[in-house]
């Protein structure tokens, strides 16, 4: 299909074109709608879940999956399906909250570091403090210092993911600021703010969006791992990583208790990666024609 045909069909913005190219990648498209479904699941959890997440039913403790409890129940007789559905709220908040926070913070810092050479060393060297320590020790230290809560978990993960965004944004801006079209805008009398917002940011978005989708899965895994070792979300709240940890002691007899939340994490991470992969191809302007 030529560019002109595409335009007739999809309108004229570059984003329409990206959307259309994403549509040609079936895996990415299916994954995209599945992510939307998970987000809706999180928002409407109380309406969808068959039981409250903390309703204990001592007549049905450790029930194998059946029609009343499709994923079985845990040691307090709580419905695992309902807990998974409520747990998606934490996962979605952590995944997208961390990425949005660290993206905004990291990109802003990265752009300033690259555009104003005097700020480059202070900003980047400071951020490297966070990126040079291996993830788990860093996150564990931060959580232990700040205390365990959803808010603190988010802050820790945002701090951990910020340097990555800052580095991408900085690298992109360093190449873009020497572009001739930036010089052309300077020659027209454009202010720094205008150049950053109208020329540099739109042109550096592609790798940032790809990183956003690809590392959302990563942050979900980190949060689940922290919950698993008891430093994330605290019981009795339903969080997928925490559920794996709780089911661990029953793994020999009641496999589904740990395996099902585990599969949920794997599934969500997979579809996020598929969308990220698809977006990377769709956003590459060299593949436009």
């Amino acid at each position, binding site marked *: 299909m030529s560019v002109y045909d595409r335009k007739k069909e999809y309108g004229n913005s570059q984003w329409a074109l990206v959307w259309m190219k994403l549509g040609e990648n079936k895996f990415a498209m299916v994954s995209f709608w599945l992510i939307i479904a998970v987000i809706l699941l999180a928002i409407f959890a109380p309406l969808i879940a068959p039981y409250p997440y903390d309703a204990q039913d001592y007549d049905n403790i450790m029930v194998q999956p059946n029609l009343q409890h499709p994923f079985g129940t845990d040691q307090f007789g709580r419905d695992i399906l309902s807990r998974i559905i409520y747990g998606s709220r934490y996962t979605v908040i952590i995944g997208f909250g961390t990425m949005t926070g660290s993206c905004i913070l990291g990109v802003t810092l990265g752009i300033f570091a690259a555009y104003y050479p005097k700020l480059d060393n202070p900003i980047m060297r400071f951020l490297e403090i966070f990126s040079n320590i291996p993830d788990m020790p860093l996150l564990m230290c931060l959580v232990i210092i700040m205390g365990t809560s959803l808010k603190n978990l988010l802050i820790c993960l945002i701090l951990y993911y910020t340097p990555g965004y800052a580095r991408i944004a900085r690298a992109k801006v360093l190449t873009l600021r020497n572009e001739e*079209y930036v010089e*052309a805008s300077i020659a027209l009398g454009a202010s720094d703010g205008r150049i950053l917002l109208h020329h540099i940011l739109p042109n550096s978005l592609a790798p940032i969006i790809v990183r956003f989708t690809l590392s959302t899965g990563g942050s979900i895994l980190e949060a689940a791992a922290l919950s698993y070792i008891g430093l994330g979300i605290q019981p009795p709240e339903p969080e997928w990583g925490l559920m794996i940890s709780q089911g661990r002691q029953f793994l020999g007899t009641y496999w589904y208790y740990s395996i099902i939340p585990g599969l949920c994490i794997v599934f969500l991470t997979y579809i996020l990666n598929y969308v990220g992969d698809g977006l990377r191809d769709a956003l590459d302007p060299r593949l436009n024609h």
Partner: protein
Amino acid sequence: MDNNVMLSVKNLSKHFPTPSGTLHAVDGVTFDIKKGTTLGVVGESGCGKSTLGRVVLHLLPATAGQIAFNGKDITNVSRGELYNLRRQMQIIFQDPFSSIDPRMSVKQLLSEPLKIHKLAKSKEEMEKKVKEIMDIVGLASRMADSYAHELDGGRRQRIGVGRAIILNPSFIVCDEPVSALDVSIQAQILNLMQDLQQERKLTYIFVTHNLSVVKHISTEIMVMYLGCTVEKTNAKELFSHQYHPYTKALISAIPHVNPDDNSKRILLKGELASPINPKEACRFAPRCNYACDKCHCQVPPLEEIEPGHFVACHLVREINGL
């Protein structure tokens, strides 16, 4: 000062610090441009012609020298003054592929200058002005929503010209505006620029290495070699008789249409000398067929050999029998 002079440049220098020494990109260049005329700047790659244009426009800070625009010294201007100055001094870039933001449509690109200088009070006025300019530079209005990567080089360069003239400037630096284009399109863009010059009384600095282009468009021509002016005179004069050995070699390199024409090409030996920490000497001396001891230890001044014909060569009288 002469009221008729649009831009006056005196002893302008631009040096870049590099790890291996100071790079003298432009060294002591002096010229005046009269209103409504074109100064062609020619020279081989790396002789500082593009740098000269950028320093004049304050896209690069000058190391030394003065720039006066319309009789007013603009060498050291404040941010606010520079903003106002930008409306009167514009630039057309060499490469229409890299000088246009790939994420902007033609309409956005052309309205950007108006937005920066708040020249349109309403959306309708903006659209009207953009449409007018698209007419003037010869872009069909159906292309208003196209992006640069969908247009050919000629149309992209028309966008570049449109962006430069939409602010109604009086002076434009043309930095090799046609060298990235096909020959057939070069002529179209050159004609467009000449028409615009006549209609709007524009003054151009036309930087190029293409001699036939510069002959076509210039009123005066300045030949540069390694950051220095070697010869400067009006266009006709330069092509009929040259006095500097470098200019002679340059002009003789123009290919001839007549196969029987046996006029000899002057071949230059050696490479362009390094512009880093040049010694006090004629910059062209290492490649010059006539160079004497004086040439290797003294910088030749730019002398007026004939009225309006300036040459920087110690031996200009001996070589040309003047």
